[in-house]
């Protein structure tokens, strides 16, 4: 893929490429028919493990729970050697300090949700403060939500400016922009919001908060991957993708990897290019890895829950 447009000129977002849902469904079903076997399956499962943002985003999160999760992030299943760690842990800003300490030196990143997660219903100065707090606590990555209310009202410039502002407030932290596609509803809007986020400075675009259904359907992820591919062709910049919410089986994770490989190429198949926002996916991946390696399905009791 070649770099074409430097400096970047902003497109007219009202003219973002249209998306045909029927066509998307057809293409997605093709990914689901790919046969992933043997070595390819094992490698895929391990790559998926290494792409997980292990997540806890609840009102009842405690320092204890976060510490446990951070330990698991680095020790997924130590009885089986040779497994990678996850990519990151994802927590609320109030837990960033604790998480940072727990994963220090391991290479596991700390991601913090931000910008009045999950609804985004707060003024911009609150969102800036929210973001700066997380960065100051040591967050490596910021998962911000966009203002869906403004987006749906057609105020694309507002959404764009807000993302750009948070990008600035994030400093060196990697910015993931959550579109909350379940609230945008149509694939045309998923595509347009993706374009807005990337041109405004997103390092990653992310489907969902996990609080709204539907979340990371393959149709939505596919549409966002197309947007990422076009942005790369247009600007030369690589933006990552993070489907979050609803991906809990290894099979679905592999289908997602197939989709990334075929739409964007192998270059995106690392945790710099692709992440899974998930909490229960890790154990299903581990279970499948053990099945491939030993030939036996083990009960879920053999895998630590958090």
């Amino acid at each position, binding site marked *: *893929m070649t770099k074409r447009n430097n400096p970047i000129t902003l497109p007219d977002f009202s003219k973002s*490429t*249209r*998306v*045909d849902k*029927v*066509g*998307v469904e*057809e*293409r997605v079903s093709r990914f689901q*028919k*790919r*046969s*992933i*076997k*043997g*070595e*390819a*399956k094992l*490698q*895929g499962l*391990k*790559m998926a493990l*290494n792409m997980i943002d292990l997540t806890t985003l609840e009102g009842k999160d405690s320092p204890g729970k976060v510490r446990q999760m951070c*330990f698991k992030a*680095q*020790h997924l299943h130590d009885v089986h050697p040779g497994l*990678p*760690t996850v*990519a990151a842990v994802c927590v609320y800003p109030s837990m960033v300090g604790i998480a940072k300490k*727990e994963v*220090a*030196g*391991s*290479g*596991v990143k700390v991601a913090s949700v931000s910008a009045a997660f999950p609804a985004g219903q707060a003024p911009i100065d609150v969102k800036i403060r929210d973001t700066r707090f997380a960065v100051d606590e040591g967050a490596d990555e910021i998962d911000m939500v966009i203002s869906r209310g403004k987006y749906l009202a057609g105020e694309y410039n507002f959404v764009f400016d807000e993302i750009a502002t948070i990008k600035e407030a994030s400093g060196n932290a990697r910015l993931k922009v959550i579109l909350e596609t379940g609230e945008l509803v149509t694939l045309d809007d998923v595509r347009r919001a993706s374009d807005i986020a990337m041109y405004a400075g997103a390092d990653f675009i992310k489907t969902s908060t996990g609080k709204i259904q539907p979340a990371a359907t393959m149709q939505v992820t596919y549409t966002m991957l*197309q947007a990422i*591919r*076009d942005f790369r*062709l247009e600007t030369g910049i690589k933006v990552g993708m993070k489907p979050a919410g609803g991906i809990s089986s290894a099979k679905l994770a592999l289908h997602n*990897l197939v989709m990334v*490989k*075929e*739409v964007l*190429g*192998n270059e995106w*198949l*690392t*945790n*710099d290019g692709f992440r899974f926002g998930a909490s229960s996916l890790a154990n299903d991946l581990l279970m499948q890895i053990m099945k491939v390696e030993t030939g036996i399905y083990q009960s879920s009791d053999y895998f630590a829950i958090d």
Partner: protein
Amino acid sequence: MAKKKNTSEFPKWNYAPAPESTSHIQLKDRYDLYIGGKWVKPLSKKYFKTINPANEKTLAQVAYANEKDVDKAVKAARKAYDEVWSKMEPSERAKYMYRIARLMQERAREFAVIESLDAGKVIRESRDVDVPLACNHFFYYAGWADKLEYAFPNRKVSPIGVAGQIIPWNFPLLMAAWKIAPALAAGNTVVLKPAETTPLTALKLAEVIHDAGLPDGVVNIVTGYGDTGAAIVNHPDVDKIAFTGSTNVGKIIQKAIAGTGKKATLELGGKSANIIMDDAPLDEAVEGIVNGIFFNQGHVCCAGSRLFVQEGVADKVIEKLKHRMDSLIVGDPLDKNTDIGAINSREQLGMIHKYIEIGRKEGATMYQSNCELPSSGYYCAPTLFTNVAQSSIIVQEEIFGPVLTIQTFRTTDEVIQKANNTPYGLAAGVWTDKGSRIFNVTTKLRAGVVWANTYNQFDPASPFGGYKESGFGREGGLHGLSAYVKQNEYGTVRSVENV
């Protein structure tokens, strides 16, 4: 607590081979002719081999029917027509057809694998498209068998007689189903000749027909080359010819039957336009382009081989298309992950190469996907040509391979004119987000099938056929049925028996 490094070093992720098993299929070393409900040795005493185009290995020896063999088959068909099939209660005919359809479904996997072995098409397509559609054609027409009076209201409906059917190598089983199902539903009997490079699924279909207990002689399968087909066309006791294949052969048939009173439907070549408007859903349109030209290695008579892209989005679409082409997996047709399989025959591969050479000599700009091709077998990388003109040979002539030409246009009128400026008129596609545009363009395109925001979709209930040199008559749906019935108005002097 012990720290562990975040290891993210993985080798390039490629799919492991996933070949469909061939252990469940049953192929004989040698196939005779299926005539009068029996497998009979050819009077010609000759056999020819059919090979797997993916590795050039011989799959089986197949009987080479001569004129005498064809005569025998036509006689068997006539006998079955006169004595059994035309007199049978229509609801009984339907029962046989449903039985054939169900048996085909039961052996769907075997049909799919043999189709891929013999034709080079990828297992994903034979499994998901060819075989299910073939079954559905039998189901669909079985439903009409006892409802002909409703299909053609106020008409006295009767069968035509013996149908001679000659089918091509691109969709061997599906074409056999397209031909046989409506013929049987209406009470006709059949002599069918599959193409010489792909006879096996038609012969397997004969086994299914036999197992279904269809009365002897209702369906006869004779295998051979062009002279076998000519013997069917020229046989005086054949009442109707149904042919799918090249326009050249279609013209020969047309001349041969002129003045004989034989009815005919011809489904011939095409050079169909696929039109992308600037407001189209571009990524899905790119999929549609790929599906339009690379489906079945481009061996599709209705392939969207002439792409027209509106000027403002042309660069974008071509860039996306090239990117998509590079992700197509070309290789072993039996591998479940293969997107593009083998070219059907050495002869066809030569034809495609000839046209690619012509394109280069005409000064067109060529792009081929950067896929690796297998070292043996007949393969051609997905290919596109830009910088072509309406007068380029590669834009005018049917290539019947994975070769696309791309032209741009500015206005709707211009593209309609260019799309219609061809001796063919089989199919077309239009891609736009605007409903009114769809109706405007599709009503002005002179093509038998026009798809909007999709391409290469088929259904037994939908008629298929061409304008101009793409042939005449329709297959599929009620239109397809009408080609196999005589319709008389009630109360006219001409009785059915006298016609």
